[in-house]
């Protein structure tokens, strides 16, 4: 197969599998959390309730796609498209296996950080454009939270970059051939994981859409597939952060016996389940606690991690 065609196959394949995994996650999360909470979860539609996700998609499509007359129309439509596009774009730089990956950017890590920053726009624009009080509150909260946690998300990755000496995700995986970065970067790993949960605003950091106080936060006024985009965007985020943790700290595709792609899948799946476990087990903090936690604890820890990594490398 010639190079351009191979590239096209990879692009379409990654897109199709990513979308499938993201949709399957909705079903998987409901089933797994149901198990942990001693319930059954969706089990009526198809075997093991597997067709539930198709039923959900059909339902979302056939609902009224409603743009409120009091909303800022172009921005209101733009916001859900941004969340989806920004999330999916990050998958372009992830190396799934030695030869499978859409593009091997030499600034792959910066590309990921840039795209995850784009996600902030969607929630702020969506919250503001809706012109509803709950939406605005949710949007502002989401913005402040994501900005705060992005600061030390970036800082926690500086250690990984120093160890690998490259921004290319492929080089970072290759650098872990003799030991995963989770060992020398244990602190950085914890900080990144927490920042990742906050970036995707999943429980316990789902203050922007805390349903007990803000109805649905920034997507209160959204309906049909526009709501669906925000909903899917959250699962794109989970898959993305899991894949990034796998790539940066757990050696990506590296592993014995099994083919590289299988290792990548297993590690990513593990972290996805960790995300569900967090949702199934932890309560939501207060908003001031959340901000204090980020600025007063995680930021100094991330700085400490950088200094220790520097000293560790100098001593070697």
């Amino acid at each position, binding site marked *: 197969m010639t190079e351009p065609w191979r590239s096209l196959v990879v692009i379409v394949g990654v897109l199709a599998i990513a979308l499938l995994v993201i949709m399957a996650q909705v079903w998987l999360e409901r089933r797994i959390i149901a198990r942990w909470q001693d319930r059954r979860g969706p089990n009526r539609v198809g075997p093991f309730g597997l067709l539930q996700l198709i039923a959900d998609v059909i339902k979302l499509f056939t609902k009224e796609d409603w743009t409120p007359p009091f909303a800022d129309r172009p921005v209101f439509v733009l916001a859900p498209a941004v969340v989806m596009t920004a999330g*999916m774009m990050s998958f372009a730089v992830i190396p799934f296996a030695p030869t499978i990956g859409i593009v091997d950017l030499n600034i792959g890590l910066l590309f990921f950080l840039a795209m995850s920053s784009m996600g902030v726009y969607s929630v702020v624009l969506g919250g503001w454009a809706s012109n509803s009080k*709950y939406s605005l509150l949710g949007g502002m909260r989401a913005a402040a939270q994501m900005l705060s946690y992005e600061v030390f998300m970036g800082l926690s990755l500086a250690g990984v970059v120093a160890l690998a*000496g490259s921004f290319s995700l492929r080089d970072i995986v290759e650098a872990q051939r003799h030991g995963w970065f989770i060992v020398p970067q244990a602190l950085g790993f914890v900080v990144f994981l927490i920042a990742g949960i906050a970036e995707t605003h999943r429980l316990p950091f789902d203050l922007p859409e805390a349903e007990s106080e803000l109805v649905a936060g920034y997507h209160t006024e959204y309906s049909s597939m526009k709501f669906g985009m925000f909903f899917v965007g959250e699962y794109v985020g989970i898959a993305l952060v899991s894949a990034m943790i796998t790539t940066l700290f757990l050696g990506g595709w590296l592993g014995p016996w099994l083919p590289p792609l299988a290792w990548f899948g297993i590690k990513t799946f593990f972290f996805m389940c960790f995300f569900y476990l967090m949702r199934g087990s932890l309560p939501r903090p207060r908003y001031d606690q959340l901000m204090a936690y980020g600025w007063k604890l995680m930021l100094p820890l991330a700085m400490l991690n*950088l200094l220790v990594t*520097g000293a560790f490398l100098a001593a070697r």
Partner: protein
Amino acid sequence: MPVDFLPLFVYLLLVVAIGAGGIVGLSRLIGPRRDTAEKLSPYECGVPPVGDAREKFPMRYYVIGMLFILFDVEIIFLYPWAVIYKNLNEHFGLLALAEMAIFVLVLLVGYLYVWRKGALEWE
């Protein structure tokens, strides 16, 4: 060696086509359309809405926004150091570490100042 950006653009086009065009557009075509009086007002838990949503909101959010820019820019300055750190270490030894430590120390002074001023409190 310049990276071939073509796959990235093809991927971007596909994502935008599926995301924006396909999904949002399709549900506009399929979905029903029934406007009722209740739908025309913002959702406020069934109570008639009071006033406009775009009012003043707390200064705190602006402070967080400004802090974010300050700290993020400083982190951007740390990245070039991180990526060539191994190289620096070979040529300059501990000086490479000391340079970064001084930079982080300056950052820390600013951070402590912000903390003492109460910009991190959320009251």
